[in-house]
Protein backbone atom coordinates (compact mmCIF):
# COMPACT_ATOMS: atom_id res chain seq x y z
CA UNK A 1 0.00 0.00 0.00
CA UNK A 2 1.38 3.40 -0.98
CA UNK A 3 0.98 6.42 1.27
CA UNK A 4 -0.60 9.77 0.48
CA UNK A 5 2.92 11.26 0.43
CA UNK A 6 4.09 8.68 -2.11
CA UNK A 7 1.17 9.52 -4.39
CA UNK A 8 2.06 13.19 -4.01
CA UNK A 9 5.66 12.41 -4.99
CA UNK A 10 4.51 10.39 -8.00
CA UNK A 11 2.35 13.29 -9.16
CA UNK A 12 5.32 15.64 -8.71
CA UNK A 13 7.38 13.34 -10.95
CA UNK A 14 4.56 13.20 -13.51
CA UNK A 15 4.11 16.99 -13.52
CA UNK A 16 7.89 17.53 -13.78
CA UNK A 17 8.20 15.16 -16.75
CA UNK A 18 5.22 16.83 -18.40
CA UNK A 19 6.66 20.33 -17.92
CA UNK A 20 9.93 19.25 -19.57
CA UNK A 21 8.06 18.07 -22.66
CA UNK A 22 7.44 21.11 -24.87
CA UNK A 23 5.62 19.01 -27.47
CA UNK A 24 3.05 17.80 -24.93
CA UNK A 25 2.26 21.39 -23.97
CA UNK A 26 1.55 22.18 -27.61
CA UNK A 27 -0.56 19.04 -27.96
CA UNK A 28 -2.72 19.92 -24.95
CA UNK A 29 -3.17 23.65 -25.30
CA UNK A 30 -6.84 23.14 -26.26
CA UNK A 31 -7.54 20.59 -23.53
CA UNK A 32 -8.53 22.15 -20.20
CA UNK A 33 -9.48 19.38 -17.80
CA UNK A 34 -9.63 18.66 -14.06
CA UNK A 35 -8.65 15.13 -13.12
CA UNK A 36 -9.44 13.77 -9.67
CA UNK A 37 -7.06 11.09 -8.36
CA UNK A 38 -8.76 8.81 -5.83
CA UNK A 39 -7.05 5.82 -4.21
CA UNK A 40 -9.68 3.44 -2.88
CA UNK A 41 -7.59 1.92 -0.07
CA UNK A 42 -6.29 5.04 1.74
CA UNK A 43 -7.58 8.49 2.61
CA UNK A 44 -6.07 10.63 -0.11
CA UNK A 45 -7.33 13.01 -2.77
CA UNK A 46 -5.42 14.98 -5.41
CA UNK A 47 -6.52 17.11 -8.34
CA UNK A 48 -4.55 17.36 -11.58
CA UNK A 49 -5.32 20.50 -13.54
CA UNK A 50 -4.57 20.87 -17.25
CA UNK A 51 -5.02 24.43 -18.44
CA UNK A 52 -3.68 26.14 -21.58
CA UNK A 53 -1.25 23.29 -22.08
CA UNK A 54 0.22 23.53 -18.58
CA UNK A 55 -0.21 20.82 -15.95
CA UNK A 56 -0.32 21.38 -12.19
CA UNK A 57 -1.69 19.46 -9.24
CA UNK A 58 -2.85 20.11 -5.73
CA UNK A 59 -3.86 18.09 -2.71
CA UNK A 60 -7.56 17.65 -2.08
CA UNK A 61 -10.48 18.20 -4.42
CA UNK A 62 -9.99 21.70 -5.72
CA UNK A 63 -12.24 21.67 -8.79
CA UNK A 64 -15.17 19.77 -10.27
CA UNK A 65 -13.59 16.84 -12.12
CA UNK A 66 -13.99 16.06 -15.83
CA UNK A 67 -12.23 12.76 -15.22
CA UNK A 68 -11.93 10.68 -12.06
CA UNK A 69 -9.14 8.12 -11.80
CA UNK A 70 -9.77 5.41 -9.21
CA UNK A 71 -7.50 2.53 -8.23
CA UNK A 72 -5.52 1.21 -5.31
CA UNK A 73 -2.74 3.44 -4.01
CA UNK A 74 0.08 1.19 -5.30
CA UNK A 75 -1.20 1.24 -8.87
CA UNK A 76 -1.74 4.99 -8.83
CA UNK A 77 1.76 5.69 -7.46
CA UNK A 78 3.37 3.21 -9.89
CA UNK A 79 1.45 4.70 -12.80
CA UNK A 80 2.35 8.32 -12.13
CA UNK A 81 5.98 7.37 -11.47
CA UNK A 82 5.95 5.68 -14.90
CA UNK A 83 6.73 2.20 -13.54
CA UNK A 84 3.58 0.77 -15.12
CA UNK A 85 1.38 1.94 -17.98
CA UNK A 86 -2.32 2.58 -17.39
CA UNK A 87 -3.43 0.19 -20.13
CA UNK A 88 -3.11 -3.11 -18.32
CA UNK A 89 -4.81 -2.10 -15.04
CA UNK A 90 -7.48 -0.33 -17.11
CA UNK A 91 -8.10 -3.46 -19.16
CA UNK A 92 -8.20 -5.81 -16.14
CA UNK A 93 -10.51 -3.49 -14.22
CA UNK A 94 -8.18 -2.56 -11.35
CA UNK A 95 -8.00 1.00 -12.72
CA UNK A 96 -11.29 2.77 -13.34
CA UNK A 97 -11.60 6.07 -15.10
CA UNK A 98 -14.88 7.93 -15.05
CA UNK A 99 -15.23 10.31 -17.96
CA UNK A 100 -15.80 10.38 -21.69
CA UNK A 101 -14.09 7.73 -23.83
CA UNK A 102 -12.29 10.44 -25.81
CA UNK A 103 -10.88 11.98 -22.61
CA UNK A 104 -9.81 8.58 -21.28
CA UNK A 105 -7.96 7.81 -24.51
CA UNK A 106 -6.29 11.21 -24.45
CA UNK A 107 -5.13 10.81 -20.85
CA UNK A 108 -3.69 7.42 -21.81
CA UNK A 109 -1.81 9.05 -24.72
CA UNK A 110 -0.36 11.73 -22.45
CA UNK A 111 0.88 9.14 -20.00
CA UNK A 112 2.47 7.09 -22.80
CA UNK A 113 4.07 10.11 -24.41
CA UNK A 114 5.65 10.98 -21.04
CA UNK A 115 6.77 7.54 -19.99
CA UNK A 116 6.65 5.42 -23.18
CA UNK A 117 9.81 3.73 -24.41
Amino acid at each position, binding site marked *: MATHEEITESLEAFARAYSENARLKVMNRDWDRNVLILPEDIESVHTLVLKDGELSFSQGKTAEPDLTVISNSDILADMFFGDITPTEPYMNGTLRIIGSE*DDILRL*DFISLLIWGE
Partner: protein
Amino acid sequence: MKKIVSVSLGSSKRDHHVHTKMLGVDFEISRRGTDGNFDNALSLLKELDGKVDAIGLGGIDLYLYAGKTRYTVNDGQKLLDAVKKTPVVDGSGLKNTLERETVYYLRNNTDLLPPGCKVLMVSAVDRFGMAEALSELGCDMTFGDLIFSAGIPYPIKTVEELEEIAGKTLPEMVKLPFHMLYPTGEKQDTQDDKKVEKYGHYYHEAGVIAGDYHLVRRYMPGNLKGQLVITNTTTREDVTFLRDKGVGCLVTTTPELEGRSFGTNVMEAALLVLLDKKWEDITPGDYLELMDRLGMKPRIQQLQNV
Protein backbone atom coordinates in the same frame (compact mmCIF):
# COMPACT_ATOMS: atom_id res chain seq x y z
CA MET B 1 -14.91 -22.38 -57.48
CA LYS B 2 -12.84 -20.71 -54.78
CA LYS B 3 -14.77 -19.22 -51.91
CA ILE B 4 -13.60 -16.15 -50.07
CA VAL B 5 -15.45 -14.52 -47.20
CA SER B 6 -14.57 -11.22 -45.63
CA VAL B 7 -15.73 -11.10 -42.01
CA SER B 8 -15.98 -7.49 -40.93
CA LEU B 9 -16.64 -5.70 -37.68
CA GLY B 10 -18.18 -3.02 -39.86
CA SER B 11 -21.78 -2.34 -40.76
CA SER B 12 -23.80 -5.14 -42.41
CA LYS B 13 -25.26 -2.47 -44.72
CA ARG B 14 -22.10 -2.79 -46.81
CA ASP B 15 -22.52 -6.57 -47.32
CA HIS B 16 -21.92 -7.72 -50.87
CA HIS B 17 -21.68 -10.93 -52.86
CA VAL B 18 -20.07 -11.35 -56.29
CA HIS B 19 -18.82 -14.00 -58.66
CA THR B 20 -15.71 -13.14 -60.61
CA LYS B 21 -12.84 -14.74 -62.49
CA MET B 22 -9.17 -14.03 -61.94
CA LEU B 23 -6.48 -15.66 -64.10
CA GLY B 24 -9.01 -18.29 -65.17
CA VAL B 25 -10.02 -19.17 -61.62
CA ASP B 26 -13.66 -18.71 -60.58
CA PHE B 27 -14.20 -16.91 -57.29
CA GLU B 28 -17.23 -16.46 -55.11
CA ILE B 29 -16.51 -13.48 -52.88
CA SER B 30 -18.74 -12.23 -50.10
CA ARG B 31 -18.52 -9.74 -47.31
CA ARG B 32 -20.35 -10.23 -44.02
CA GLY B 33 -20.48 -7.36 -41.54
CA THR B 34 -21.23 -7.99 -37.85
CA ASP B 35 -22.19 -4.39 -36.97
CA GLY B 36 -19.36 -4.01 -34.48
CA ASN B 37 -20.36 -7.14 -32.54
CA PHE B 38 -17.08 -8.83 -31.66
CA ASP B 39 -18.65 -12.06 -30.38
CA ASN B 40 -20.69 -12.47 -33.56
CA ALA B 41 -17.50 -12.03 -35.60
CA LEU B 42 -15.82 -14.75 -33.51
CA SER B 43 -18.76 -17.13 -34.02
CA LEU B 44 -18.86 -16.47 -37.76
CA LEU B 45 -15.13 -17.10 -38.11
CA LYS B 46 -15.44 -20.42 -36.27
CA GLU B 47 -18.40 -21.37 -38.47
CA LEU B 48 -16.48 -20.61 -41.68
CA ASP B 49 -13.24 -22.28 -40.61
CA GLY B 50 -12.46 -25.16 -42.94
CA LYS B 51 -15.43 -24.41 -45.20
CA VAL B 52 -13.97 -21.65 -47.39
CA ASP B 53 -10.63 -21.18 -49.18
CA ALA B 54 -9.56 -17.97 -47.46
CA ILE B 55 -10.94 -15.47 -44.99
CA GLY B 56 -10.36 -11.74 -44.93
CA LEU B 57 -10.64 -9.80 -41.69
CA GLY B 58 -12.29 -6.45 -42.28
CA GLY B 59 -13.09 -3.47 -40.10
CA ILE B 60 -10.14 -4.31 -37.93
CA ASP B 61 -6.39 -4.36 -38.35
CA LEU B 62 -4.38 -7.32 -37.22
CA TYR B 63 -1.15 -5.39 -37.57
CA LEU B 64 -0.14 -1.74 -37.38
CA TYR B 65 3.26 -0.63 -38.65
CA ALA B 66 5.72 2.14 -38.02
CA GLY B 67 8.97 1.72 -39.89
CA LYS B 68 10.08 -1.86 -39.65
CA THR B 69 8.26 -2.44 -36.38
CA ARG B 70 5.01 -4.35 -36.48
CA TYR B 71 2.48 -4.09 -33.64
CA THR B 72 -0.16 -6.80 -33.24
CA VAL B 73 -3.64 -5.57 -32.30
CA ASN B 74 -4.91 -7.73 -29.43
CA ASP B 75 -8.52 -7.86 -30.63
CA GLY B 76 -7.30 -8.77 -34.15
CA GLN B 77 -5.21 -11.59 -32.70
CA LYS B 78 -8.24 -12.96 -30.82
CA LEU B 79 -10.15 -13.14 -34.12
CA LEU B 80 -7.20 -14.76 -35.87
CA ASP B 81 -6.88 -17.36 -33.11
CA ALA B 82 -10.49 -18.43 -33.65
CA VAL B 83 -9.61 -19.88 -37.06
CA LYS B 84 -7.53 -23.06 -37.12
CA LYS B 85 -7.70 -24.42 -40.69
CA THR B 86 -8.47 -21.69 -43.24
CA PRO B 87 -5.87 -19.03 -44.00
CA VAL B 88 -6.83 -15.59 -42.64
CA VAL B 89 -5.48 -12.21 -43.79
CA ASP B 90 -6.25 -8.63 -42.80
CA GLY B 91 -4.95 -6.93 -45.94
CA SER B 92 -1.84 -5.50 -44.31
CA GLY B 93 0.53 -7.54 -46.50
CA LEU B 94 -1.07 -6.33 -49.71
CA LYS B 95 -1.53 -2.75 -48.47
CA ASN B 96 2.18 -2.37 -48.06
CA THR B 97 2.78 -3.30 -51.71
CA LEU B 98 -0.38 -2.18 -53.52
CA GLU B 99 -0.67 1.23 -51.91
CA ARG B 100 2.98 2.09 -52.42
CA GLU B 101 2.54 1.16 -56.08
CA THR B 102 -0.61 3.30 -56.31
CA VAL B 103 1.36 6.34 -55.16
CA TYR B 104 4.17 5.67 -57.66
CA TYR B 105 1.60 5.07 -60.42
CA LEU B 106 -0.13 8.39 -59.76
CA ARG B 107 3.17 10.27 -59.81
CA ASN B 108 4.42 8.61 -62.98
CA ASN B 109 1.21 8.49 -64.99
CA THR B 110 -0.91 11.46 -63.86
CA ASP B 111 -0.54 15.03 -62.62
CA LEU B 112 -2.57 14.29 -59.48
CA LEU B 113 0.40 14.13 -57.10
CA PRO B 114 2.84 16.93 -57.97
CA PRO B 115 5.93 17.36 -55.77
CA GLY B 116 5.19 19.50 -52.72
CA CYS B 117 1.43 18.91 -52.82
CA LYS B 118 -0.25 19.02 -49.41
CA VAL B 119 -1.45 15.59 -48.31
CA LEU B 120 -3.55 14.77 -45.25
CA MET B 121 -3.35 11.12 -44.21
CA VAL B 122 -6.09 10.70 -41.64
CA SER B 123 -4.20 7.76 -40.19
CA ALA B 124 -0.81 6.45 -41.27
CA VAL B 125 0.02 3.57 -38.93
CA ASP B 126 -2.56 1.40 -40.70
CA ARG B 127 -1.11 2.25 -44.14
CA PHE B 128 2.54 2.85 -43.50
CA GLY B 129 3.56 1.85 -47.04
CA MET B 130 1.43 4.63 -48.50
CA ALA B 131 2.74 7.10 -45.92
CA GLU B 132 6.35 6.29 -46.73
CA ALA B 133 5.81 6.46 -50.49
CA LEU B 134 4.06 9.85 -50.32
CA SER B 135 6.85 11.24 -48.13
CA GLU B 136 9.53 9.78 -50.36
CA LEU B 137 8.00 11.60 -53.37
CA GLY B 138 8.29 14.94 -51.62
CA CYS B 139 4.67 15.55 -50.67
CA ASP B 140 4.00 18.02 -47.83
CA MET B 141 2.59 15.53 -45.32
CA THR B 142 0.22 15.89 -42.41
CA PHE B 143 -0.30 12.61 -40.58
CA GLY B 144 -3.56 12.86 -38.61
CA ASP B 145 -3.10 9.86 -36.33
CA LEU B 146 -3.13 11.93 -33.14
CA ILE B 147 -5.71 14.42 -34.41
CA PHE B 148 -8.43 12.03 -35.42
CA SER B 149 -7.78 8.93 -33.29
CA ALA B 150 -6.89 10.66 -30.03
CA GLY B 151 -8.40 14.11 -30.51
CA ILE B 152 -4.99 15.73 -30.01
CA PRO B 153 -4.62 18.67 -32.44
CA TYR B 154 -1.03 17.92 -33.30
CA PRO B 155 -0.21 17.36 -36.98
CA ILE B 156 2.70 14.96 -37.37
CA LYS B 157 4.78 16.18 -40.31
CA THR B 158 7.44 13.54 -40.88
CA VAL B 159 7.66 9.76 -41.05
CA GLU B 160 10.44 9.91 -38.46
CA GLU B 161 8.23 11.67 -35.90
CA LEU B 162 5.40 9.30 -36.72
CA GLU B 163 7.69 6.35 -35.96
CA GLU B 164 8.89 7.95 -32.73
CA ILE B 165 5.37 8.66 -31.42
CA ALA B 166 4.13 5.25 -32.59
CA GLY B 167 7.02 3.59 -30.76
CA LYS B 168 5.89 5.22 -27.51
CA THR B 169 2.16 4.70 -27.83
CA LEU B 170 1.33 1.73 -30.06
CA PRO B 171 2.79 -1.04 -27.85
CA GLU B 172 0.09 -0.13 -25.30
CA MET B 173 -2.64 1.18 -27.59
CA VAL B 174 -2.93 -2.16 -29.40
CA LYS B 175 -4.05 -3.69 -26.09
CA LEU B 176 -7.16 -1.49 -25.91
CA PRO B 177 -10.52 -2.60 -27.32
CA PHE B 178 -10.33 -1.88 -31.05
CA HIS B 179 -13.51 0.21 -30.99
CA MET B 180 -11.63 2.82 -28.94
CA LEU B 181 -9.15 3.28 -31.78
CA TYR B 182 -11.27 2.87 -34.90
CA PRO B 183 -14.94 3.36 -35.82
CA THR B 184 -16.74 0.02 -35.90
CA GLY B 185 -20.39 -0.93 -36.49
CA GLU B 186 -22.83 1.99 -36.57
CA LYS B 187 -20.04 4.53 -36.22
CA GLN B 188 -19.08 3.68 -39.81
CA ASP B 189 -22.39 5.09 -41.04
CA THR B 190 -22.17 8.34 -39.11
CA GLN B 191 -19.86 11.31 -38.76
CA ASP B 192 -18.20 12.58 -35.60
CA ASP B 193 -19.72 16.08 -35.78
CA LYS B 194 -17.55 17.54 -33.01
CA LYS B 195 -14.34 16.47 -34.68
CA VAL B 196 -15.61 17.49 -38.12
CA GLU B 197 -16.18 20.99 -36.77
CA LYS B 198 -12.93 21.14 -34.81
CA TYR B 199 -10.55 19.46 -37.23
CA GLY B 200 -12.29 19.78 -40.61
CA HIS B 201 -9.89 22.58 -41.53
CA TYR B 202 -7.14 20.01 -42.04
CA TYR B 203 -9.19 18.63 -44.95
CA HIS B 204 -9.74 22.09 -46.42
CA GLU B 205 -6.02 22.90 -46.20
CA ALA B 206 -4.98 19.72 -48.05
CA GLY B 207 -5.03 19.07 -51.78
CA VAL B 208 -5.00 15.31 -51.28
CA ILE B 209 -6.77 13.30 -48.56
CA ALA B 210 -5.55 9.74 -48.15
CA GLY B 211 -6.21 6.75 -45.95
CA ASP B 212 -8.78 4.29 -44.73
CA TYR B 213 -12.21 5.13 -46.13
CA HIS B 214 -14.11 4.88 -42.83
CA LEU B 215 -11.74 7.34 -41.19
CA VAL B 216 -11.74 9.66 -44.22
CA ARG B 217 -15.55 9.64 -44.18
CA ARG B 218 -16.05 10.01 -40.43
CA TYR B 219 -14.26 13.35 -40.16
CA MET B 220 -14.86 14.85 -43.62
CA PRO B 221 -16.33 18.38 -43.66
CA GLY B 222 -18.48 19.82 -46.45
CA ASN B 223 -17.57 22.46 -48.97
CA LEU B 224 -14.38 20.82 -50.16
CA LYS B 225 -12.83 22.42 -53.22
CA GLY B 226 -12.27 19.48 -55.53
CA GLN B 227 -9.69 17.64 -53.44
CA LEU B 228 -8.33 14.25 -54.47
CA VAL B 229 -9.16 11.29 -52.20
CA ILE B 230 -6.98 8.17 -52.27
CA THR B 231 -8.58 5.30 -50.41
CA ASN B 232 -9.46 1.63 -50.57
CA THR B 233 -13.04 0.48 -50.19
CA THR B 234 -15.96 2.42 -51.62
CA THR B 235 -19.54 1.60 -52.53
CA ARG B 236 -21.77 3.59 -54.89
CA GLU B 237 -23.23 5.36 -51.84
CA ASP B 238 -19.72 6.30 -50.72
CA VAL B 239 -18.98 7.84 -54.10
CA THR B 240 -22.16 9.92 -53.82
CA PHE B 241 -21.17 10.98 -50.30
CA LEU B 242 -17.73 12.12 -51.48
CA ARG B 243 -19.18 13.96 -54.47
CA ASP B 244 -21.67 15.78 -52.21
CA LYS B 245 -18.85 16.87 -49.91
CA GLY B 246 -17.04 18.46 -52.85
CA VAL B 247 -14.36 15.85 -53.52
CA GLY B 248 -13.08 16.31 -57.09
CA CYS B 249 -11.41 13.03 -57.83
CA LEU B 250 -11.41 9.59 -56.24
CA VAL B 251 -8.61 7.05 -56.52
CA THR B 252 -9.30 3.57 -55.18
CA THR B 253 -6.41 1.19 -54.78
CA THR B 254 -8.30 -2.07 -55.24
CA PRO B 255 -10.08 -3.06 -58.48
CA GLU B 256 -13.81 -2.67 -58.85
CA LEU B 257 -15.99 -5.80 -58.85
CA GLU B 258 -19.64 -5.25 -59.76
CA GLY B 259 -19.80 -1.60 -58.83
CA ARG B 260 -17.64 -1.45 -55.75
CA SER B 261 -14.05 -1.76 -54.73
CA PHE B 262 -13.50 -4.44 -52.12
CA GLY B 263 -11.26 -4.05 -49.11
CA THR B 264 -7.61 -4.95 -49.28
CA ASN B 265 -8.33 -7.89 -46.97
CA VAL B 266 -10.55 -9.42 -49.68
CA MET B 267 -8.02 -8.82 -52.43
CA GLU B 268 -5.21 -10.20 -50.30
CA ALA B 269 -7.29 -13.32 -49.61
CA ALA B 270 -7.87 -13.77 -53.36
CA LEU B 271 -4.18 -13.32 -54.17
CA LEU B 272 -3.27 -15.76 -51.42
CA VAL B 273 -5.47 -18.38 -53.06
CA LEU B 274 -3.97 -17.67 -56.50
CA LEU B 275 -0.41 -17.81 -55.17
CA ASP B 276 -1.13 -21.03 -53.28
CA LYS B 277 1.50 -20.18 -50.69
CA LYS B 278 1.50 -19.67 -46.95
CA TRP B 279 0.95 -16.01 -46.03
CA GLU B 280 4.27 -15.76 -44.20
CA ASP B 281 6.13 -17.03 -47.29
CA ILE B 282 4.68 -14.43 -49.67
CA THR B 283 7.02 -11.59 -50.61
CA PRO B 284 6.19 -8.11 -51.96
CA GLY B 285 7.66 -9.40 -55.26
CA ASP B 286 5.01 -12.16 -55.38
CA TYR B 287 2.25 -9.58 -54.96
CA LEU B 288 3.79 -7.27 -57.55
CA GLU B 289 4.11 -10.01 -60.15
CA LEU B 290 0.55 -11.19 -59.59
CA MET B 291 -0.84 -7.64 -59.64
CA ASP B 292 0.95 -7.15 -62.95
CA ARG B 293 -0.52 -10.36 -64.40
CA LEU B 294 -3.98 -9.32 -63.21
CA GLY B 295 -3.52 -5.86 -64.70
CA MET B 296 -4.40 -4.30 -61.35
CA LYS B 297 -4.20 -0.54 -61.57
CA PRO B 298 -5.68 2.13 -59.34
CA ARG B 299 -9.11 3.27 -60.42
CA ILE B 300 -9.42 7.00 -61.02
CA GLN B 301 -12.87 8.62 -61.05
CA GLN B 302 -13.62 12.28 -61.67
CA LEU B 303 -16.46 13.20 -59.33
CA GLN B 304 -17.27 16.76 -60.38
CA ASN B 305 -18.06 18.17 -63.80
CA VAL B 306 -15.08 20.04 -65.18
